[in-house]
């Protein structure tokens, strides 16, 4: 509930959150290249990996039995990657537009700002992923939606990770300005080899497997392979992912608050566009 006299930054107003969602929606629908961009690259990725899997499965008994793992991995990776990018791009739009000062001087609380960015990451993801998942059915007969409740568990865990990374990157951008912009585009790629998107964790060197098992998406991709290859839904993996996600989200939120405080001390909010 909103209370104009409250003295805390942790108060939450659905109305202010809705205002920010409205702002990003106006922006999205004002530009068809922005909309096209949401669909274009996931489609290219899905087609490339889909045809590769088709070729490999025709020449390998194992991969014939592991039908859909590549396409499934691509689509789930896109949830992770696009979720974070969707969050970060919406935040970057404020810096590109030099609008951050207006927002920071308004009654908008950081938690409302972050909530709006989370909602927009889902909206952007839906615009990109729903058509691509339908194309995967048409081209390769891979129906992501047939995963049912497992897909829900995968999605929740991946989107939580993507938000955590997005929140931390937003803090870096506030503290360091546009000098940290490249982090928004590249940070998630560190997760690509470590979370074993396209191969089992067992492939990694023994010591690196410990690192890998500390990252929530690792459990999701292992869970996806268990489901598609062994036809077993691993609840234990999903719960472990959720546990690590809670820790990661809390750490990212703490980091954001500290970086925002530091930005106020350093005066970075005054030069947020530079």
């Amino acid at each position: 509930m909103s209370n104009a006299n409250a003295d805390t930054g942790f108060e939450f107003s659905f109305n202010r959150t809705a205002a920010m969602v409205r702002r990003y929606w106006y922006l999205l629908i004002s530009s068809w290249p922005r909309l096209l961009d949401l669909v274009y690259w996931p489609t290219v990725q899905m087609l490339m990996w889909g045809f590769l899997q088709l070729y490999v499965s025709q020449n390998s008994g194992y991969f014939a039995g592991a039908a859909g793992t590549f396409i499934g991995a691509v689509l789930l990776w896109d949830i992770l990657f696009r979720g974070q990018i969707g969050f970060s791009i919406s935040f970057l739009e404020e810096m590109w537009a030099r609008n951050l000062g207006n927002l920071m001087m308004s009654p908008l609380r950081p938690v409302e700002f972050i909530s709006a960015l989370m909602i927009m990451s889902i909206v952007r993801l839906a615009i990109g992923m729903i058509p691509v998942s339908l194309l995967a059915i048409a081209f390769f007969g891979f129906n992501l939606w047939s995963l049912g409740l497992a897909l829900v568990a995968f999605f929740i865990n991946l989107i939580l990770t993507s938000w955590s990374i997005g929140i931390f990157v937003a803090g870096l951008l506030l503290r360091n300005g546009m000098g940290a912009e490249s982090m928004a585009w590249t940070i998630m790629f560190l997760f690509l080899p470590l979370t074993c998107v396209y191969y089992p964790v067992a492939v990694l060197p023994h010591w690196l497997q410990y690192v890998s098992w500390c990252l929530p998406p690792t459990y999701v991709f292992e869970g996806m392979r268990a489901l598609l290859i062994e036809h077993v839904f691993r609840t234990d993996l999903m719960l472990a992912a959720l546990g690590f996600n809670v820790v990661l989200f809390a750490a990212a939120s703490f980091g954001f608050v500290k970086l925002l405080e530091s930005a106020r001390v350093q005066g970075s909010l005054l030069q947020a566009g530079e």
Partner: protein
Amino acid sequence: MAMDARPTPAIAVETLVKRYKSALAVDGISFALPAGSVTGLLGGNGAGKTTTIAMIMGLVTPTSGTVQVLGAAMPAQRYRVLHRMNFESPYVDMPMRLTVRQNLTVFAQLYAVPDVAERIATLAGELELTEFLDRPAGKLSAGQKTRVSLAKALLNRPEVLLLDEPTASLDPDTADWVRARLERYRVEAGATILLASHNMSEVERLCERVIIMKKGKVEDDDAPARLLARYGRATLEDVFLDVARGRGERREVAE
């Protein structure tokens, strides 16, 4: 015990210091602005005006000293008062791809403005923006953009209005028009206005008090007429140059 009958100032700055590593941007300044007053903050580049305004807005945390706005300590208690304040600056923009109406609608919602459509229509009429309401903000001229920023700054009928170079980059006619609107708002709303500017005629016209900053300190602080008398100058610009260049000792006048 006797009660202090003096009204609480709208803005109270007390021994405010801001240090960025080795650079001292603001060096122990103090002033109090009564509610309903219009004050000009003058100073050359690097004098500390923008940092001072940023601390008043809660965008920058002071190294030491205090800032109070409408009784709330900034930045710690900023959410108590941000809905009663607003600001306008050429250093921030409205989102360019959104239309004027969309921009104002978003900010009206952020400030919980009642009757949004009516308020936007009223402001658009007053600021002569009606014909631009459905045009993207990025396609407006500099003068039109300033009027849109001013409309955003007045959306929530702020009690405290902070203006950083409100007429920078405007032609004289548009700048004069903006000043007239600000004067009218001040009279109608009784708002407290703090105005950072390099434009001396603007300050002379709008402000009943002038604070001159130099190297992070308050160099002088008085009514324009008294400053002119004290420095023996005909214009505030000459006073400003005297202070900026450290020449022309100020002459104390007998009370």
